[in-house]
Structures are given as C-alpha cells and as structure tokens.
C-alpha cells in the first residue's frame, strides 16, 4: 500500500478554517500588553511568552501531524524543512526558510520575512529587551519536544529591533528515545 502523500503547506492552509490575521495580531498584542502590565520586568515577560508558546506547541504538534500527513523525518534537516515549509504555512499562512546549517547538522536558522504577529507593532524605548515574538520560540520548542527532540530556540535577528528579517535559531540538544509507559507482558 502506498504511504499517504504528505500535503504541501499551501494545500493544508487552503483546507483549514481561517480567520483574519488582524484579529490574531491584535489579540496577541493585547496578551503582550497584559503581560507587560502584570509582570513589569521584560525578562519575566519573555519567559512567560516562551512558556505560553511551549503550552501551545505541545498541543499544536498533534494537529500538525494529523493534518499534514508527513512521514517520520529522517534527520534534523528534514525536520527543520518541514517546520519551515509546512508548519509555519499551515498555522500562520507564511513560509519560513531554513539557512545557516552548522557542520554537524544540529543547528539551523529559520528565517521569517513576513510575520503576522508584528503587524502594526513598534517597540517603545522602555521595552527594548523584549522578544515580542517569543511565543514562536516556545511553540517550536514545545512541538519538537513532543516528538522526542530537546532543542534550544533563540532569536538571532528581530525586525522590531531594526533588523531586516526575523531569524530564529534552533539547536538540537539531544534526541530523547521514546519511552513506553507499559512494560512487556503487562
């Protein structure tokens, strides 16, 4: 039997229900604003955004795997490609590109030119240390952890801080073998 053909990001995006990205952008802005008012420390806000992203990523990966029909990725390179081309397209409607592979193939950068989270956004002087899109790094980290990859995700370039693209560095720390909770014969 032929394996299910993985669908392209565009095809999946066309088939899911969609909402206006401005509602999404404004809601995210409201969340960040609430966090800044409550927590006041920029570092705390970064951490909280990452945690929220982690919670989302953990659930998002299920939907991703269900809708996209991707087969098991052979190595981290393929994983990164799939995240950039299918994952981002499916949820955010934009594609990312993968660059800057290191020699061992464990670190790469996801480049986002278009980011619906930051439409209409400007960072004020008081919040210069804020990683506004930190929720994305949490999402990637959470999603990969659910498929047994422990990663470290950091922002290298940020358009809100004057760079020309968003660059997210994903570093594979280790691959955790799947542990089955059931012993044999029990």
């Amino acid at each position, binding site marked *: 039997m032929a394996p299910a053909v993985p669908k392209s990001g565009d095809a999946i*995006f066309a088939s*899911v*229900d*969609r*909402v*206006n*990205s*401005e*509602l*999404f952008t*404004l*809601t*995210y*802005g*409201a*969340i960040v*604003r*609430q*966090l800044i008012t*409550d927590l006041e420390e920029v570092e705390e806000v970064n951490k*909280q955004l990452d945690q*929220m992203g982690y*919670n*989302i990523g953990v*659930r*998002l990966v299920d*939907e991703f795997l269900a809708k996209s029909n991707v087969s098991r990725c052979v190595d981290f390179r393929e994983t990164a490609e799939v995240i950039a081309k299918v994952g981002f397209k*499916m*949820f*955010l*409607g934009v594609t990312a590109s993968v660059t800057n592979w290191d020699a061992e193939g464990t670190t790469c950068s996801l480049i986002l030119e278009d980011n*619906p989270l930051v*439409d*209409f*956004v*400007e*960072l004020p*002087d008081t919040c*210069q*240390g804020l990683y506004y899109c930190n*929720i994305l790094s949490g999402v990637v980290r959470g999603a990969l952890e659910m498929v047994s990859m422990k990663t470290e995700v950091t922002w290298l370039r940020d*358009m*809100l*801080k*004057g*760079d*020309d693209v968003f660059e997210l560095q994903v570093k594979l720390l280790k691959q955790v073998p799947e542990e089955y909770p059931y012993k044999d014969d029990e």
Partner: protein
Amino acid sequence: MIGVGKIKQYSNVLDKPLGKGKQEVSLSAFAFLFSELVQYNQTQVDNIAELERRLEDAGYAVGARVLELLCHREKGNRRETRLLGILSFIHSTVWKVLFGKVADSLEKGTEHEDEYMISEKELLVNRFISIPKDMGAFNCGAFVAGVVRGVLDNAGFPAVVTAHFVPVDGQQRPRTTILIKFAEEVLQREARLG
C-alpha cells in the same frame, strides 16, 4: 546586546503601508492563542468576575484599534455620529472583518430604551471552549464584549457591554448575546439630534 544607538526601527511603523487586511492565519492558531490568554488570566485572578473583567480589558484594546483601522480603511475616515450608524457598523463591518461574517442579529431591547443586543449563534472565540459547571455563567465572549465596548467608547458612544448565554430550544449549545447598554448622555445626544 542591543546597542543604545539602534533604538530607531528600520522604517517607522507609521510609514509602512496598512495592507488590505486580506491576510489570514489558521483558526486553530487563533484558538490556541485565545486559550493561552484565558489560561494565563485564570492564574492571575481569584474569581469569575475578575476573569471576565480582564478578558474584557484585553478586548477593549483590540476594539480601540479595530475602530481606527476600519474607519480609515473601510469608511474613508468618515465618523459615525448616530446610534444606529455605529451599531450597524459594528454589526456588519467590524464583525465581517474580525469573524468573516456579519453578526446574526441586531435587536433593540424591549424593556429599556438604552439596550441593544447583538446575537451570534456560535461566537468564534467560544468555538473550542467548554465551560466547567463550577464556573457558572462565565462566558469567554467577554473578550468580544470588550471589543465592542472599545469600538463604542472610542467612537464617542460610552456603554456597558456584557456577553450572555441564551439557551435556544432545539440547539445543544446556547446562543451568545452581546448586550449593549448605552450611557445616559448618548441617548440624550441622540434625542437632540432628532
């Protein structure tokens, strides 16, 4: 480390073009984000009223910005001055842009002069949310109520806006009604305008 001299952005955000507003994200992305908003607020409050208020405040900020954006883009910077005008603006334009369809109905309250109701069979934000029994009458539509309040307040029609579940015969999930109660000055002004 961000250098002090680099605080100016690449290009002033006010110079960037607004865009047509046709870009979309997946519904699940929004649903995940909204669920995180609710979960985060749940950790910050002790009771339901506080939670509703925080969701409403979040929505208020969204509403204020939506009004600015839509007035400029859809209506060519014309300002609504009449009550029915702003209500139909919310019911059709705002709802169409935010949720992809016009609201199901707009009604005038029968008991009070200052009450109007916008009803929706299934609010987009409530689609993936289930309320546990012990939270009683809590409605995540408080976020949408906040959006409406933000639009009305910034358009010069101060009002108290709340979201309620209204059970409907023959339907498993109740309908959501956004109840708008205008301030006294709005009605007086409306009467003066004739």
